[in-house]
């Protein structure tokens, strides 16, 4: 894992944040409304570095919206109104003049259903590097091999790198998407219920990968399986109807929740 952060593939180190500048995501009084519906209300929180943060809460509480606002995918929706600040490494990503592409590049996204791009396995991984200007074939091959290994996929696919990615199993596809995200050297991994479409074995594989990756990345995941959060979360954020009810280290939230709603949710009174 070591050489990932060394900028081995990118000598000028333009995008990967230097270690001492590395901070985290800070959300300050963040409000989102889509088409008149107030979806996120005055959300404030800090995502800790190099830990797994789980955002939990009943469906429709704004978890995914919060996650999607981290890498500004929210911009894709029409009629979005955003108020408040969202600082990534100390920089407000919603300020004008921010390069969205470099913000997004800092975050690898894993969506609910794996979504391989319409190209070969090799090109899927190489896509991000090519987008960012790496054309050297030898280098690309190194990158692809490295990140396929990081996602534990290398041994399964090394003989068929040129077959379309859509022919892989769904669990393999999700790991491919993870590897694809890692290949642009992000700092965060955003996972939006990334295991909900997978079989138990594949989702276990993904969880194990997350536990390994958290040495180097901050991982933010939205989940509505409480048990998953119990298994892997270091830090937990509980949301309800667009508001952040409670946040804190996993142990504290699970063992000693302060808020009435959190207690009810954790005891399974609603989900």
């Amino acid at each position, binding site marked *: 894992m070591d050489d990932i952060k060394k900028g081995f593939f990118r000598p000028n180190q333009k995008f990967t944040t230097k270690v001492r500048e590395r901070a985290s995501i800070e959300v300050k009084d963040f409000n989102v409304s889509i088409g008149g519906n107030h979806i996120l209300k005055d959300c404030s929180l800090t995502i800790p570095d190099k830990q797994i943060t789980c955002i939990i809460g009943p469906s429709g509480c704004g978890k995914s919206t919060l996650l999607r606002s981290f890498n500004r995918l929210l911009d894709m929706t*029409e009629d979005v109104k955003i108020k408040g600040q969202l600082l990534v490494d100390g920089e407000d990503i919603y300020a004008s003049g921010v390069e969205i*592409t470099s913000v997004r590049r800092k975050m690898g996204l894993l969506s609910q259903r794996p*979504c391989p*791009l319409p190209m070969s396995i090799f090109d899927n991984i190489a896509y991000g590097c090519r*987008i960012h200007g790496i054309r050297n074939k030898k280098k690309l091959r190194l990158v692809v091999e490295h990140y396929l290994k990081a996602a534990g996929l290398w041994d399964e696919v090394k003989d068929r790198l040129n077959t379309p990615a859509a022919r892989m199993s769904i669990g393999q596809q999700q790991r491919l998407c993870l590897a694809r995200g890692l290949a642009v050297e992000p700092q965060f991994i955003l996972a939006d219920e990334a295991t909900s479409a997978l079989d138990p074995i594949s989702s276990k594989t993904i969880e194990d990968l997350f536990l390994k990756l958290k040495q180097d990345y901050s991982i933010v995941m939205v989940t509505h399986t409480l048990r998953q959060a119990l298994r892997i979360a270091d830090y937990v954020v509980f949301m309800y109807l667009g508001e952040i009810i409670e946040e804190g280290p996993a142990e504290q939230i699970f063992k000693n929740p302060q808020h009435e709603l959190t207690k009810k949710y954790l005891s399974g009174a609603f989900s």
Partner: protein
Amino acid sequence: MKLKLITDKSAAGVMFSLTLLSLLLVVVIAAGLIFKSMPILEEHSLWELISSSKWKPARGEFGFLPFIVGTLWVTGIAILWTLPVALLTSIFLTENSKRWVKKAVFPILDILAGLPSVIYGVWGIVVVVPWISDWLAPMFVEFSTGYTLLTGGIVLGIMILPLMVSLFVELFSATPMEMREASLSLGATRWQTTKFVLLRKNFPGILATVILSISRAMGETIAVLMVCGNIVQIPSSPLDGGYPLPALIANNYGEMLSIPMYDSALMFAALILFVVVMVFNIVSRVILRRIENKYI
């Protein structure tokens, strides 16, 4: 048996036979055209008909090459300029524009699609023909009437533009949002995403749409007939006049009974059109329906 079941059954019978009857129409048209073009096919070989450029009906010489080449020219020009325009427009509509732009553009497409062929012809004569003869052609040739293959191609292109744009818009909107998000979240710009993901993903659909548009363009008659000169010759440049197949049929139906074999020759022209259009149509529809079934 209950009355309502009997009516149901008989209604089904009626509907079934109506469906079959309309299906039969394809076969009947094909059979009729083949039957009528048999005389000329018995006299000349198929190859001779489509490869000879001698067109002297009164002397019994029927070479369709000038007309086939004319059709190819006009259709080619039309597709060549509309494909990029239609692609860019539909990408703009699905990927980049606000809702009000779509609301403004779709009625415009409706109108373009609804205007009769003859209106395009009038517009071509009043606007495009003078533009070509006074402005464009003098830059390349000494004299042009303005009634050229290029004129036909321009007018024809505008006529197939709405079809292309609406099919492309349908294709692109059916492409899952997640696919774009996957590319964007790697730090790609919207244009990179469009270029590398959207266009690539929809390549079969784009191909099918182009084939469909070609088949539509080939059969267009009146507008093209009005603007492209109708000169029997093998054209050498887009600024020459030409004579596409549909124009041949439309222009000569009046005398087709007075010259021997002429009617058979014109029906053969119709048969060529029918076969080409049908094959192109089936190919593209099969591709498009495959895609549709995959997504929905």
